[in-house]
């Protein structure tokens, strides 16, 4: 289990890069494509092995791209901009497919359902998770985050701000993380709130379910820790520490054995889930690392694992994961 730096593109965007996602290989395109979104209000696409730019940058994301998510079929992706618009676009042509408008500051992280029939968005200031269907792009429902039992009064007085969202790989669970550290878990089939997961007390910016144990959830939090939850049994089953500052992003390797995290301490770390410890630290970025993403399996001749990381230093790095 290790990472080896393959390539790094400095100045990939004109400004800080904030989001990255892999659009998986599809029938019409043999390889996966890396999408990145940045403060310079563009989304760019990159080839998977040499990080050569694919097509011109897609513009029109006012004030910067906050979050990116790719549809599991590989053709579509969604980008959230700071002015609370979600633009759904065709990965290859960059053409808009739909523009979903949310009330101001009511959308942040997005994720497609693993089967691809819904798009979930962390509802920011609305304190909820919003769901759209992916056929007509109409809102399905909005799942509110209830206040936890006996919660402390909110310090900022501005309600809960929901930052991140994650689907379990079997599509049965949906989790969302908020700025005060609460994580809400929903039954995604019956669209019902199940329970909160406790343990974090600062913003939870990123989370991901394990691909092998569909109820194991990994979370990244500003309190510098990574937690492992049994989301079904509502228990904290592991915690990993080592970052010197906020953990901004997390992704799990396709084999389910490792997670990678990006942090404000400018490093990317690789963690062994079984050992509950950090096995490698990459410090090639010179500013905080806002997103890490493992390439999904599948596609022509793709055996090797790939990890991409993007940072405020305007660069993209690609690593070999083996």
């Amino acid at each position: 289990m290790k990472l080896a730096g393959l390539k790094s593109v400095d100045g990939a965007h004109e400004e800080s890069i904030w989001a990255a996602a892999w659009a998986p290989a599809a029938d019409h395109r043999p390889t996966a494509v890396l999408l990145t979104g940045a403060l310079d209000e563009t989304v760019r696409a990159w080839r998977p092995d040499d990080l050569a730019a694919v097509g011109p940058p897609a513009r029109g994301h006012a004030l910067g791209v906050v979050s990116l998510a790719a549809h599991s079929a590989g053709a579509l992706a969604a980008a959230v901009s700071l002015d609370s618009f979600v633009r759904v676009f065709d990965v290859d042509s960059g053409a808009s497919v739909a523009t979903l408008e949310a009330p101001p500051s009511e959308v942040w992280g997005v994720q497609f359902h693993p089967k691809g029939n819904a798009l979930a968005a962390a509802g920011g200031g609305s304190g909820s998770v919003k769901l759209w269907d992916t056929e007509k792009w109409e809102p399905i429902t909005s799942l509110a985050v209830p206040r936890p039992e006996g919660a402390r009064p909110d310090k900022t007085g501005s309600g809960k701000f929901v930052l991140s969202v994650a689907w379990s790989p079997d599509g049965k669970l949906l989790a969302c993380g908020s700025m005060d550290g609460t994580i809400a878990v929903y039954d995604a089939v019956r669209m019902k709130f199940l329970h909160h997961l406790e343990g974090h007390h600062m913003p939870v910016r990123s989370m991901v379910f394990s691909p092998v144990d569909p109820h194991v959830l990994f979370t990244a939090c500003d309190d510098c820790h990574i937690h492992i939850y049994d989301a079904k049994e509502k228990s904290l089953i592991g915690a990993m520490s080592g970052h010197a500052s906020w953990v901004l992003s997390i992704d799990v390797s396709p084999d389910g054995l490792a997670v990678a995290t990006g942090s404000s301490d400018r490093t990317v770390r690789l963690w062994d889930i079984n050992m509950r410890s950090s096995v490698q630290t990459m410090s090639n970025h010179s500013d905080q690392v806002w997103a890490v993403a493992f390439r999904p399996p599948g596609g022509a001749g793709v055996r090797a694992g790939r990890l991409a990381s993007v940072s405020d230093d305007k660069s993209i790095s690609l690593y070999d994961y083996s």
Partner: protein
Amino acid sequence: MPETAAEANLRRQLEQTLAADPSIPLHHYDLGVFLWARAEAEQEGDGDEARRLRAAAAEHFLAAAKLNPNDGVPFRFLGNHYARGGDTQRAAKCYQRAVALNADDAEAGEALCDLLDVEGKESLELAVCKEAAGKSPRAFWAFRRLGYLQVHQRKWSDAIQSLQHAIRGYPTCADLWEALGLAYHRLGMFTAAVKSYGRAIELDSSRVFALIESGNIQLMLGYFRKGVEQFRSALEMAPHNHSAYFGLASALLAWSRNCVTTGAFGWAANLLKEASEAAKICASLTKNLSCVWKLHGDVQLALARCFPWVDEKIKRGVDAQMFKDSVQEWRNAILSAANGAKLSYQRALHLTPWEANVHNDAAICLDLIYSMDDNNRHDPNVWELSEKMSLGALILEPVNKDFWVTLGSMSSDLALKQHSFIRALHLDMSLSEAWAYLGKIYRQSGDKQLAKEAFDRARSIDPSLALPWAGMSAENYHQSGGSTVNESFESCLRAAQILPLPEFQIGLGTIAARTGNLLSPQVLMAVRQAVHRAPHYPESHNINGLVSEVRSDFQSAIRFYQQARSALGMMKNSKSDNKYVFADVSVNLARSLYKAGLATDAVRECEELRSQGLLSIDGLQIYALALWKTGRSEEALSVSRNLAENLSGMKPESAGVALGFICTLTYAISGKDSAAAVIHKLPGQLNYSSQLKFIISALDALHPNKRLQLPQLSMPPRLTSYEVMSEVHSNIALGKAIEGEMDKPLRVDASLSYLKKVLHMYPDCSLVRNQLGSLLLWSGDWMASHKAIRVTSLTHGHTSSMGLRSAHQIQASAMVCCYATCTSYPKFSFPTCEHQYLSGHDEIHHLQRWVHREPWNQDARYLLVLAIFQKAREEKYPKHMCIILKRLIMQVLSNASNSHENKVVQYEVFLLLLLSSEICLQSLDYENCIAQAIEALRRTASRCVDTFFAHFQLCRAYAVKGDLLNSRNEYMNCLKKHANTEMGWVMLKHLESACSLETCSDEIYKNLRECIERNGSDLSKWTSLFNLVSAQCFIGDENFASAEEALAQACAEGDPDSCILFLNGATCMEIARRFAAPQFISRAAPSLRKAQQKSHASLPLVSLLLAQAEGSLGSKTKWEKNLRLEWFSWLPELRPAEVYFQMHLLARQSAAAASQQNQLVETMQSPESWLLRAIHLNPSCSRYWKALLQLMDA
């Protein structure tokens, strides 16, 4: 089946050919094959007709074989014929001949081997296969046969070779793959075995054997999940296969053990329940297999050990009885699982009483049952059942070291324990468990030295054993000294991570409470698990409460403390034993109640404790605090006096804390004077803790008359911690600012100079830097915005929330508050700011990053709006920015609307509405503009916010709309407001003439003067600005003389801005032009010259005007020089036609004068082309056409 016509025809042909030439074997053979096929086709295989045909065929085959003895095929047919006839001897011979002639003949080979197999001639069979295999590498049948035989004979490595070869011939034969898998499996090549089994399953998904075997291998390799999957699919194929059930149960058991070590107890329990079901079914299928019962016992025992207590039912309001019931339920569940285990072990024992380890397992199980069941009181004279069972195991196998350890760990007799462990160590010196247990015994009996030695040995033998770490942790914990406690925490953490026992976890929590590690997630996880594993321990609930409390989850903390008390009530010990523990928990409870805002309940708790005389120092503090909160201040003070009396008897650090508490409380109840009195009463030599210093400095700051000149404050910094000292200094600086009376304006200067000194001392302290920055912005210093940015530093990641303003706020405010337009791109405007603060664009990105980092932070969004607005203003309100701004403002407003109390928020709302109004005005939407401004007036009470600018905005809007009446009204409103902003008055002056309102400039000027005096701001700067505006008004009225006068005044004030100088020059030139007054040209020239020198970027038009002035004054070279300057001060795409025209003039001059100077700009092109370009840019100017005519004439 009778012969058909075609067949008859064929036979005739064959017979004829044979008759034609009977010496050719092929003809015999062909006819034989035909007859044989006919015989096969007969309906009755052994009917007379068939027999007849076969006999005929055999004759022909025989003839063929005789004629050509080197062809094997007829022999094979002969063999078939004899085999059918039951003559195995001859058949075998014929087959042998066939195989010997052609080793690749699979049919003959298989038939021969089958014959041999039936007769049990295995070695012969082997020999035949080997021979065939040796003869031809393509004799795959032989390799296959050989492989199977070798597998049968357990010659695994030979079998692998044969099977691999055979697979080349039959790559899709699942049997071969399965056999290969088995061979690999037996040789211990597990990965290869898994692959082979996998291939077999792939080819034929109903391979139960392959599924089960590969499941077993996966289990052995530790891949429980895959193992479980495989056993499950085997069960789908064969629902009554007991080995699949056995495998499933053991896989689930192993998986659950893995879960337990990571702490996922709920998960483990679920897996174990499933495992128990599987084991039960397996037992019902096999009945009398001891190992199945043992497996079931193991599963049940594991379940009993990891079954978690679930507190789902207890939500609110802990009822002691409910808690008790819940714990009892949990205990019963465990007991029933343990009893189930016991029963299974009993059955296993019944079946195989000679198995020592079942005895041992039963002993362990019994021990668990005894430890869980409260009703069993141990009678020292009777041997416990578990001890007995353990001894039984030992009698069967006296040399098993593990049994000795088991006996030692469950015996209650100290001597027997020690004896057992020592016996175990006799058997194996490096048995780490025995050493660890021995250490535990020595520790319990107080023999520390021996305990330490034993633990050290255990740890050095096996560092992954939890117990020695725990022992070392306990050792360190009781020693004094800061570092050892941390070591103790580390050791205990390791112990709890290796083995998540509730005892270790509670210990970890206790140590964490002392070392301040309660926030660590590892501790949280351990303590939560401890509660689930040991709900009957009061300590687990208590620590759990502490953990929740430290995470500010007070409601849960209260619930946990109450549970702890209920658990205490369930303890068997007498009440008096638990008295102090009870008091501790109650104090915790009171504190949480207070923190959760339930002060009355907290008071009640404390009073109850007090009545029992159990109120400790901590309790007293909470009591006083809660009393104060409930409004019983007098009582609170008396309690705090009570506390003060006890101060001398305390440890110094807790005394310091208590003292700080008393001061703060006294201040809160009876004000600063009494608090000061408390401090004065302090013994002088008392070594102040840093917190106390902070309190004193804060009091000092609030106390303008400086009665607290305590020497301790100015102590050298080495003695106290860095953070607190910087806070103390920040307090002192604030104190300097509010020196004198409270209602006077702040004395920012004194504070600033103090802060500068502090910064010199602590150069990397962001708190001081931020405070300095915000005070600078506050100070109204003309250049504050530039200085503030220099002192504050933006750090990444953590933004310090300390201080008056964050670094981001300071930077953003500085960007917005620079009066000069700072655009870096000269397309929109020209920067006149002398200090070149040109990082505005970058600053917006900083703010966007901040919003991205803290999307919930409304301050960040608000500042972003301001910054973008500033940019929009500089870029003349482009449409897309207006749209973004409108959206952003709506967003911030929608979030700010819910807090009406806060003055700052009110002001922000007011400002945002005005911004929104301004954007509407700029996009020519007057109705909305007015509506927004009125909304701003409506939403904000005038006592909180100075509404001057709302009226001002309305006045502008009405004026633009042409509604003079309303405009005038608003103007008067503005005048009445006595706003405290200089800028407001200056701008109002502007409006006065723009709306052609009656002149009250005197009044405005008066107001401005008052305002300047009140704020102590720079008189000359503001006067010159005011004069500039007046001049602009005069110019608007075409009153150039007055304008010139005003501008001259403005220029005379101190250090005028370049734009004032420029306007002065331009006005002079205009007067000179209009009124033909050449004396003004000489006035214009110096102003323009100064303006040119002062501005950093070269201002356009200045040079042009200066060129004209200089030209008029008779200096041709200066005229030329300035015209060239003018050319370069424009961006290429922005140059107006006039510049080209001037260049044409210049070109004509220099073309006439000196053509060799071709490096000059004007010589780049001919005068004609300059002129043509000018005309191209502006064809409507008749001057250019005239010049062109002249040029053509010339």
